[in-house]
């Protein structure tokens, strides 16, 4: 990691890289944690409104997306196993599958958002303004949290796509699998966050 011109090349520190990644994930956990605090604060303030507003969401899409997300997490972890066993073809295939699933997830999400926006359920919409205050907050949180999660999915796709390319070119192999492992850690965290979002929004009713 130290500069190229260095006369004293440091040995690569894979554990250090992983520790750094975990510390970064800590910041992500707390980032969403802040939103979870906000959610629980508001839910304890407006239990009935949250219950009612939750019924406006399409639980089927939410559950479907959960399955997509869980499966994509599986394919990433399988990609790591195959990389460590030196099965490059499988690694590429698993990562490709992950990317496809991620795209499917975002598509689902897009369809869902479009439906809700079509029904006038978005911040500052005239229809939403007629609903009780607690429900407006529910939708504010819903768009913020799923939107931020969606951005993380997008970022994760970027990272995994980059890793996929480098695996295909042979630049990432079993000797430096820590890159893929770290990308995988990030993806799993995105998965964990969705695991929490499902009951908070879709199963609240």
């Amino acid at each position: 990691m130290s500069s190229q011109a260095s006369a004293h090349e440091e040995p690569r520190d894979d554990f250090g890289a992983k520790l750094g990644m975990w510390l970064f994930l800590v910041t992500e956990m707390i980032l969403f944690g802040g939103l979870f605090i906000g959610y629980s604060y508001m839910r304890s303030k407006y239990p009935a409104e949250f219950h009612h507003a939750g019924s406006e969401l399409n639980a089927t899409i939410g559950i479907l997306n959960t399955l997509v997300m869980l499966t994509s997490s599986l394919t990433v972890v399988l990609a790591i196993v195959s990389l460590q066993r030196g099965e490059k073809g499988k690694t590429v295939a698993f990562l490709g599958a992950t990317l496809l699933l991620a795209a499917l997830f975002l598509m689902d999400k897009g369809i869902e958002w479009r439906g809700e926006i079509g029904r006038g359920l978005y911040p500052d919409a005239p229809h939403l303004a007629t609903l009780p205050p607690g429900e407006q907050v529910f939708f504010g949180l819903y768009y913020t949290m799923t939107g931020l999660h969606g951005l993380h999915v997008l970022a994760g796709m970027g990272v995994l796509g980059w890793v996929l390319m480098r695996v295909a070119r042979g630049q990432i192999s079993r000797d430096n699998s820590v890159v893929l492992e770290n990308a995988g850690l990030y993806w799993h965290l995105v998965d964990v966050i969705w695991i929490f979002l499902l009951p908070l929004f879709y199963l609240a009713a």
Partner: protein
Amino acid sequence: MSAPSATASTSEPSFLVDQGPRHGLLAWLTTTDHKRIGLMYLAAMVTFFFTGATIGIFMRLVQLSSLSHMMTAQTYNALFTVHGVIMIFLFVIPGLPAVFGNFFLPLQIGARDVAFPRLNLASWYFFMAGAVLAVTSLFTGGGPPDTGWSFYAPFSIKTGTNVTLAVFAAFVLGFSSMLTGVNFITTIHRMRAPGMKWFRMPLFCWSLYATAWVQILATPVLAITLVLVILERLFGIGIFDPAKGGDPLLYQHLFWIYSHPAVYIMILPAMGAITEIIPTFARRTIFGYKAIAFSSMAIAGVGSLVWGHHMFTSGMSLTGDMIFSLLTMIVAVPSAIKVFNWTATLYKGSIDFQPPLLYALTFIFLFCIGGLTGVMQGALAVNQHVHDTYFIVGHFHYVMFGGTGIAFFAAFLYWFPKMFGKMYSRAWAYAAWFPIFIGFNMLYFTMLVLGLEGMPRRYYHHLPQFDTGHVVATVGSWILVSGLLILFGNFAYALFKGKKAGSNPWGGPTLEWTTASPPPKENFATIPTVTGPPYVFPVEPRP
């Protein structure tokens, strides 16, 4: 360090000399050398500090009743907001960790660099990007924000000024802070020299370690809070807007969950630097090494749990008031422990009263006033009176300026010869102390008194009974600034014309003093092996 086994050979060129393929400014902007990055932070921060101070001077001038027409109330509100944003996010929070932490953490633990040098450079760019955004927010949109640096909702979501961009700037700066935290923790865990056990680390490193944890655990909450403010302003998501069922108190909780621990991000590295200076000039080992190390961790831990004391008058539940007041009292204890340990370190030493020690002891005095006024307002009944008055303004300037600011100067005086290989004029460093000390107390002690009399903070226009106090404070601000100019003029002069400093002008015991001044690019010719605790005197002379 008792007889570190290796030292730098004097033949290697210093890190200030370009050694890569690139030269000049470009070499600096693309460097991954922690020392160069530290200096780049330093250059930026000194600039911001003087910008913030200039704004402060103007704020004081307005409070002279005869000059109150020099600007409108709107301009004044913008000034105190910008003063707060610059000083807090661009100077005090990153000040010691980003400048001296970057420069000296690897040197003190005997490493060649931090764990992620490129990430370190990225942090600097995030920092500069945030700074540029903050400055841009002054001249675009609806003009500079006028909410105070705390951006309280719902005012911050209603005002027509350019809060969105300013808040985004703070968000980016938070990113820089978090990445630095990740970097430092990994560095301390992975890069310590052979034999550098945890309890052989210099205490400055301990304080950086504690700080880094707070940076990681608290900053994301600020990030998300600021994102919510931006979304609120752009899309009206309604989480903080009472008209839509939102709750301004939720904003305050989230904001202070970060921003109180931020105070400890500011003060912990300052305490660490002081802990380095005192044993060096007392020529004896630190009193109670473990107590100081653990108190750093305790401050980081308990300090993250006291945010509610900013909300005693907000209508929080009485239970909340009680718990947060109790925790606030408890967090004062580890700070007290440190003060006692520092004082005890002077006992039976052989004190060499050099400028860094003078400033370090000044830190202790001013920090005591800051800390004790903190305890006073942690008492609920008193808080109710002094909250949001000049008492608070005085208190946190004692902590942040008298504490972190003075510690920054002390650290700079202490490490300047190591960083640049030059020595400043000690006589002028002493001379600068008098106006700084006198002006500081005239300015901020008066504020404490004004606050008790009922002068609210963030007031463009004050009631006539506060006239005298404001005149005293304003005159104090002039004296203070003249001292600062002498201090930094001295540094600037020494940078170009200073006498050469040896590798260990103070007789410092820790590893950074075993290498050349300024250090070579690789820090150490061979990585030292550590065989004992950090503060061992007498220091054996280097071969």
